[in-house]
């Protein structure tokens, strides 16, 4: 047993080394100095308080998305539609803020209502993928992909049309909200402690939901073997729907954070790819909720560090995406190789 543990760690380290080698090779192919690129990325993460708070600000929506897909993965579902769920959350939040911004309600209350609206918006979009799956037989991957496009188009329509800035037909975004509708950032940095608290709370709740509750146990039973779960009396389709609703709600909160704490308006790319990134993080941690927070933090840091590349080296910032992707690929493949080599016929 102990030997196997060490072997597993050794293989995972090998995967990390391979991923770094691959990324270095990619950098050499692009004619760049790998050392310079890596040091630029690291500097972009650690060189100032602003960088570190930026990383934490990116961590929040990623953590919410990761926590969400951990629930759907537990139920055996591939919620690729999470991108659209984030967008719908952002749309609902924006709608609520617009509706109430001229009311006499205190800003704090409006923000809270905005978050609830975002939660509902995401949950609705998640439920839609769930209904298509459970009642229409449409695989959640393809239903979700279609719904992602629809959500983005809907946001675009609102931005150019009904919610457009007066006099300008621009896809750049809606009018910026007055600062009283911004999530408070007391230290004068991009990070709101409220958002940070929300993200951490969500990760902890999902960890305990999946680990220590009856609900989580039944959810995992549905994910492992739907038929067996059904025969044992678990209401299977209801549990699939719960998973979609919960994941959509968390994604919707991520959208609400993007609107109230990051952009302070609705933009077409409001999801910033955090949904797909959340799926990657969940795969990398082998769906173990304990690791969600640290690995999501690492991926958020890569996102922020990558921003330095276009500035310092005139390269595309997608190097971060390359490293994020290849790391998951090698971890999956190396883990597969380990199982094939050392765990055959137990």
């Amino acid at each position, binding site marked *: 047993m102990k030997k196997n543990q060490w072997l597993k760690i050794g293989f995972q380290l090998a995967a990390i080394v391979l991923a770094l080698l691959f990324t270095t090779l990619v950098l050499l192919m692009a004619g760049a100095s790998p050392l310079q690129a890596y040091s630029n990325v690291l500097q972009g993460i650690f060189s100032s308080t602003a960088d570190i708070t930026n990383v934490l600000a990116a961590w929040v929506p990623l953590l919410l998305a990761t926590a969400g897909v951990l629930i759907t993965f537990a139920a055996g579902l591939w919620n690729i539609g999470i991108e659209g769920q984030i967008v719908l959350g952002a749309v609902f939040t924006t709608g609520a803020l617009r509706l109430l911004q001229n009311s006499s309600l205190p800003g704090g209350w409006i923000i809270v209502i905005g978050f609830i609206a975002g939660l509902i918006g995401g949950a609705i979009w998640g439920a839609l993928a769930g209904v298509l799956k459970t009642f229409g037989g449409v695989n959640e991957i393809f239903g979700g992909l279609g719904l992602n496009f629809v959500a983005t188009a809907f946001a675009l329509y609102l931005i150019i049309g009904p919610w457009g800035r007066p006099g300008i037909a621009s896809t750049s975004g809606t009018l910026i909200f007055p600062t009283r509708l911004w999530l408070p950032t007391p230290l004068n940095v991009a990070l709101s402690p409220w958002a940070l608290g929300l993200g951490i709370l969500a990760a902890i709740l999902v960890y305990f939901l999946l680990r220590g509750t009856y609900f989580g146990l039944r959810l995992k039973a549905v994910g492992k073997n739907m038929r067996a779960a059904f025969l044992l009396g678990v209401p299977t389709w209801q549990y699939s729907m719960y998973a979609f609703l919960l994941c959509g709600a968390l994604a919707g909160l991520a959208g609400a954070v993007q609107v109230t704490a990051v952009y302070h308006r609705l933009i077409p790319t409001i999801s910033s790819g955090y949904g797909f990134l959340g799926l990657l993080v969940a795969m990398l941690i082998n769906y173990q909720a304990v690791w969600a927070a640290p690995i999501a933090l690492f991926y958020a840091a890569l996102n922020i560090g990558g921003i330095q590349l276009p500035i310092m080296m005139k390269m595309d910032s997608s*190097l971060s995406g390359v490293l994020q992707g290849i790391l*998951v*690929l090698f971890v999956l493949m190396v883990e597969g190789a380990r199982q094939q080599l050392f765990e055959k016929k137990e």
Partner: protein
Amino acid sequence: MTSMGLLISIAGILSGAAPIMFGVIGETITERAGIINLSMNGTILLSAMVGFAAAFVTGSLFLGFLAGALLGGLVALVVAFSSIALKQSQVAVGFVLAVLCLNLSYFLGHAYISQNGPSLNVLPIPVLDKIPILGILFFRQDLMTYFSFVIIFLAWFWIYRTRPGLMLRGIGERPAAAYVRGANVNRLRYIYTFLGGAIAGLAGPTFSLDVKAGWAGQLSGLDGYGWIVLSIAIFGGWNPFRAAFGVYLFSFLQWLGLVLQPVLPNIPTQVLQVAPFPLMILTLLLVNIGDAEWVQRWLASLPEGTRRVMARILRALRASPPASLGVPFESE
């Protein structure tokens, strides 16, 4: 619009659909063999970038398309290897590759943005291009558009009319039975995944060297096509003709979105461009709903005559996937 203008528009739809056609036919072949290659979105972007770069550097269009096809095949092999040899989830590996290849294309393609590269010219087919109507539609296109027509028939013929095609269907439906009949299931799956990936890999260069000539990084507007391809492959029910119908329907709807733009000035172009997606979801719903339990129950409750008609309609719409799609095969 004049009738001539309309004909030219339709000819444009046909050539504009060529890249999607390669993607969909490639994916159809791969899935027929029982493997889902979910990497399509990344494959198309990276093959577009690599194809453009290869043609730009060598000055040879042929090498550009070849590079795209090889890259598509290679990415597909990673899916096949991870699934067959390493027993990893095809969906997981495919999804990671979709994200990875997209980022690779943006990163490595940075140097080629807005470069003037070669592009494919129209190549009218002598004599045939003089046929009224048909000449404009089918015989005044470029080489890859012709190939996109031909490949529909080739794929259909291979799958349904040849012995190896029978084996191909066999390894996707009942690999155990095919194995007993002497097929080397996993080797065939490698071959067909590579082949399907290579055909799909033509989609990228067909964009970057033909339909949307050039490479513009994130502004190329190719992000998303791979997901469309996957949806149409399902809609196509793993039959090349039905898949081709799906491709042209999608392209037609996108074109319609552009044409309707002046009529509906309040709706931005980007919104009309996604009009096919709700329809896509709807068709996927129609294709699959016949299998849903509540529909079966509802059907059973209908009076005999209506029930038979409804059941027939649903059956005609229905498309069932190869029975072993996504399921790894082990001989013991």
